[in-house]
């Protein structure tokens, strides 16, 4: 199965996002590179607003992620509550 | 159709021989001698003899290669447009059939110092 991935800038605001991704996607693999963090997962990755809000202790709009995104791979589906990446293979 | 377009479209070639003030472009490369990263581009008159091209620009440009001093020009094998071909050293480029933007290749079979050991 192909990996989907997301890469975020390494900064204070992405720390809880990365933590939430790891909590919600047990198969995710985190790679820390200079100034960025890349997270791979086989076939599918879901980012839940609720998990991030639990970690940051405030309301969080998933579209805030746009500020810190570097790149991603996979078909995207975004709703108010989650952002999902998938490969259909 | 020679281009995807709304209606018929004919392009104007940029590099026709008429634009080179009486000269023409000739490309020359030396097979397996990749110290030179690409074929040389020469802009020379068609009246120049093949010998003048060899003893002039070609000798000067190939100088940095360690094999250059050992070239026996009478034994060099030549290709034109990727086909084996024998030049007449005394005749002009034009009389040798070397047209604008022709690619000449030279081979020196036993002379390949910088070529990778097989």
């Amino acid at each position, binding site marked *: 199965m192909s990996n989907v991935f997301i890469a975020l800038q390494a900064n204070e605001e992405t720390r809880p996002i990365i933590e939430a991704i790891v909590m919600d996607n047990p198969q995710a693999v985190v790679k820390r590179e*200079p100034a960025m963090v890349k997270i791979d997962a086989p076939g599918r990755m879901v980012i839940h607003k609720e998990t991030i809000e639990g970690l940051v202790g405030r309301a969080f709009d998933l579209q805030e992620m746009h500020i810190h995104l570097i790149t991603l791979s996979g078909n995207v589906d975004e709703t108010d509550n989650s952002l999902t990446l998938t490969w259909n293979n | 159709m020679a281009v995807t377009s709304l209606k018929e479209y004919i392009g104007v070639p940029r590099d026709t021989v008429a634009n*080179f003030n009486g000269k023409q472009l000739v490309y020359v490369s030396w097979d397996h001698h990749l110290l030179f990263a690409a074929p040389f581009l020469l802009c020379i008159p068609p009246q120049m003899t093949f010998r003048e091209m060899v003893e002039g620009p070609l000798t000067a440009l190939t100088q940095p290669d360690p094999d250059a001093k050992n070239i026996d020009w009478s034994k060099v094998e030549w290709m034109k447009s990727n086909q084996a071909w024998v030049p007449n050293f005394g005749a002009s480029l034009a009389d040798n059939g070397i047209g604008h933007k022709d690619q000449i290749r030279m081979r020196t079979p036993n002379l390949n110092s910088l070529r990778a050991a097989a």
Partner: protein
Amino acid sequence: MDTQVTKKKLGLKERYKLLTRDLGWETTFHTKDEVYPYVKYEGIKINDWDKWEDPFRLTMDAYWKYQAEKERKFYAIIDAHAQNNGHLNLTDARYLTAIKMFLQAISPGEYAASKGFARMGREFGGVGTQVACQMQALDEIRHAQTQIHAISNYNKYYNGFHAFSDSRDRIWYTSVPRSFFDDAMSAGPFEFMIAIGFSFEYVLTNLLFVPFMSGAAFNGDMATVTFGFSAQSDEARHMTLGLECIKFMLEQDPGNLPIVQRWIDKWFWRGMRILSLVGAMMDYMLPKRVMSWKEAFDIYGVENGGALFNDLARYGIKPPKGWDVAAGAIEHMSHQLFLGLYQWSFGTAFHGWIPSDDDMEWLSAKYPTTFDKYYRPRWEHIKKLEAEGTPFKNYGLAKLCQTCQLPTVFTEPGDPTMMCHRETEYKGEKYHFCSDGCQEIFEHEPEKYLQAWLPMPALFSELNGDIGAWMDWVGLKNGVDNGDYVGSQDQINFDKWRGMATSNKQS
């Protein structure tokens, strides 16, 4: 019951619907064909424009809000960089060669992309596509501006930056990316989307920006990391637009498949040729290297590209035709191009150099089957020439590829000792190519590519071969911007200023 219904907060999908609702009106003064004259001639059939959806569904207010925040972050860091002698924190001023090349060759591409997407925002028929293209047009002009602004700090101290807009139009190597964008912009809207939105943004941008930015972070270049990440934060949206557009085309009509496939083949190949510049940058120009070009290609090309094409297989899409040839050349392309950049460095607005012994050791380790065998002997000989006082310069200029406009530095597939010679004749004129891929692109649309302005022939047709006049014309200061890094003003100044910054020395 009389309880008041609380007004429900609109969801993401509904908000996006409202944003675009009134943009798709039925025209009455003119027919749709007159309003959108370019959407049919490429042969792509669209039955229902409303089927295209933007998965991010970014509304205009949210767009401005997040973009403004990105700008604030960007300028905070750029100011700090300028205020804290950021230009002295580099590992080595040699590093700036990569940034000079970026400013001359890549930033103008951002501007070209902006123009292209502005046009596509007008030419496409569907409202979702129009909005996404217009946002991308704004993004791309922001990228061009922030890059020029960030890099302008280096222009105060170092050479090679001052004439980037003339370089963009006139110097030889910049014609490679320029012709890439010109080719895309002179195509129809659908091909443009495959060229820039899909091939460039989805398949290639990771290979361009991610290693570049990590390289900048590794080499102490905070300005570039910052503009890179700021630009890259828009990229996820761009990549998604590209992918959604290709799926949309393929879902709309089965007849679209062969057209889309041919564009994928073409633009993958053109993109790989541009990436040879990135390969040379990663393997040779960064004093402190993050990963080799080959390693980057394994991650972002093989793994990620493979996943993408597996996914698209359900539509009948095959991996790009030149994929295997490109993969076979990965361990050669950066070496072949940098060798050229070195020997023609009298004509580049950046410096060249002979790789140090350390560099060569790294290259052998990263390219165990190719570097020592093919490329080290050439560099050892070049070192010898340098030591003997006859440094190697190739004044022969170079044959350029009619399609990609790179010097034809690449070798035959399967034989790294033999240069690839390809030529064709069309209407009595000869044309030369670096590869089968470029030749096929030409042969499909010869009337387009025969017009190419090739800088090396132009030096003779327009300036009679006068190199001095050419240098003036391209804005290249001889002996200052060009030539070897060792002994250059850049090297001398960097060492001096760095000494002043880290000790109490006054000069």
